[in-house]
């Protein structure tokens, strides 16, 4: 139906300065093919707004694409205890961070998806997340309304007048320009099916104004529509479709492939310096023309070892622990 585009074209839909969000959870089901291409196309001043971040976010930060990182978490789980690039760039004052808690970020995305400007929550009272001194966008004068996607306040304290249960917090809706989602299957017209845990994908996709869906495979609409209660998103919410097998590597994808732990650990280790990251990016991003070439460089054997067993939904080949 004319929605099929390439990874390169998908990244062309992203503008410098865009507020952007992604599918997935920490090191699972991140749209890595698009992430690499964003870096290759040298997008700048992105405002990441994410329920949680991970390898993909730290990579964008390392490549200098990110001005604001607004989320609750960044790291590589077992394969890297923090976001090496974010850590360094925050220490150097090169990236603006705005911290909310996980539930708050989720609710912010849910409010965006629901079309309301804010939502109440009990979460995270008593913490420095709500310390007005640490409202970084506010301190930098970015809450003046000049960017209509940045709320005028970080949060608000309000008394519950309905049940008199005390003081709660209003957190502002997340309103990204664009969401890039990697999923297992998309129909030719755009119906999205996600297998396994859905994370916060529904909220992220619905909160965004534009949606790019990258899928392991594009399948007939009729096939997905045999079980409509297993589908997450209808076609008219999807602006563009990219078919990219393995497109979430090195993050994992339920039913498709494992997290590539050694690849991720190597990445993390190299992010402890900018030079290290730059060399890594030179090898794995700038040194290859596109994602298929990247997969070729990884090689059949490595990919095959990550491939999910179709009964387990994960690989039972990859060695994971010390025994």
């Amino acid at each position: 139906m004319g929605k099929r585009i390439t990874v390169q074209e998908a990244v062309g839909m992203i503008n410098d300065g865009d507020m952007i969000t992604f599918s997935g959870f920490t090191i699972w089901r991140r749209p890595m093919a698009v992430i690499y291409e964003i870096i290759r196309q040298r997008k700048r001043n992105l405002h990441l707004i994410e329920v949680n971040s991970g390898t993909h976010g730290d990579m964008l930060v390392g490549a200098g694409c990110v001005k604001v990182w607004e989320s609750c978490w960044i790291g590589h789980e077992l394969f890297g205890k923090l976001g090496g690039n974010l850590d360094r760039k925050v220490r150097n004052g090169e990236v603006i961070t705005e911290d909310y808690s996980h539930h708050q970020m989720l609710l912010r995305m849910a409010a965006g998806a629901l079309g309301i400007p804010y939502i109440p929550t009990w979460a995270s009272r008593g913490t420095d997340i709500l310390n007005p001194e640490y409202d970084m966008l506010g301190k930098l004068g970015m809450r003046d309304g000049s960017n209509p996607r940045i709320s005028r306040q970080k949060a608000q304290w309000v008394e519950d007048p309905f049940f008199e249960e005390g003081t709660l917090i209003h957190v502002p809706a997340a309103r990204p320009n664009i969401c890039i989602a990697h999923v297992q299957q998309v129909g030719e017209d755009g119906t999205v099916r996600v297998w396994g845990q859905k994370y916060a994908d529904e909220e992220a996709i619905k909160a965004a104004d534009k949606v790019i869906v990258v899928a392991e495979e594009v399948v007939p609409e009729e096939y997905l529509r045999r079980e409509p209660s297993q589908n997450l998103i209808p076609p008219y919410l999807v602006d563009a479709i990219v078919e990219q097998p393995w497109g979430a590597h090195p993050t994992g994808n339920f039913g498709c492939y494992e997290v590539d732990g050694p690849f991720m650990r190597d990445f993390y280790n190299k992010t402890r310096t900018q030079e290290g990251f730059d060399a890594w990016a030179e090898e794995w991003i700038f040194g290859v023309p596109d994602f298929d070439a990247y997969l070729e460089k990884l090689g059949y054997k490595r990919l095959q070892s990550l491939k999910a067993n179709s009964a387990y939904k994960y690989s039972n080949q990859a060695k994971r622990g010390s025994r």
Partner: protein
Amino acid sequence: MMEKNYAKPGEYKVIDLLAVAAAREVNDGEVVFAGTGLPMLAIMLAQKTTAPNSYLIYEAGTIDGKSLHLPASVGDARCVYQAAVASGLYDVFGQLQRGRIDLGYLGGAEIDMYGNVNTTVIGDYTKPQIRFPGSGGNPDINSMARRTVFIMVQEKRRFREKVDYITSPGWRVRKWPGGQMVSRQEAFGKTFRGGPSAVISNMAVFRFDEETGLMYLDTVHPGYTVNDVLNNVDFKLDVSRVKGETEPPTHEELHILYHEVDPEGIFLP
């Protein structure tokens, strides 16, 4: 009842004791929120021993999974196997805020004497020395589950009078705007649920005084002394109520941990 067959120091590692001590905090039938790592070991051990009817929720969106292989993170495909529900964050965090969760397991980089935990930065937030991963669900779980158990590394620089950044609220917290340290209930009333009920470190188990909200020493792990603990705490710790030694792991528990819970050695070396 069979007599318990305890392992002696040297027959187990510190991490084994941490997992076992944490598992003992679960009551049967409870609904438990667990994060990656030791929390998973603890709840899965509990399910195979004293709390077979407890329910395990992973933050990424699975409820009561019966993993065949230990997940390496809460987003792992392994979480889904034989779960009651595989959904997403909106479902499970909604249940948390609704008051459905009995127990959360959490960790942290720093903790203070009131149980405030820091997982965000070392140094000034606006110009940090280290930027950690950030809060994740730590503050959410620790203010909306009925109680929370923290698992920490025992070091002087980690058990501090005051943490650099309160990521997760203890028993006396900052009330904004203003920033005064006040008790949870004073600050926010009865809707402020839960809080840290125990801190389990590699040396000891700590609990909190109901009146003052201050941490006190509850039990010391076999092979450590009260003085060892005091030397690794940077505030005046109440040691007057020490009940004695932490119950060591049994051989049965160790067997389950190494052969059923984590046979691949994901978290247990």
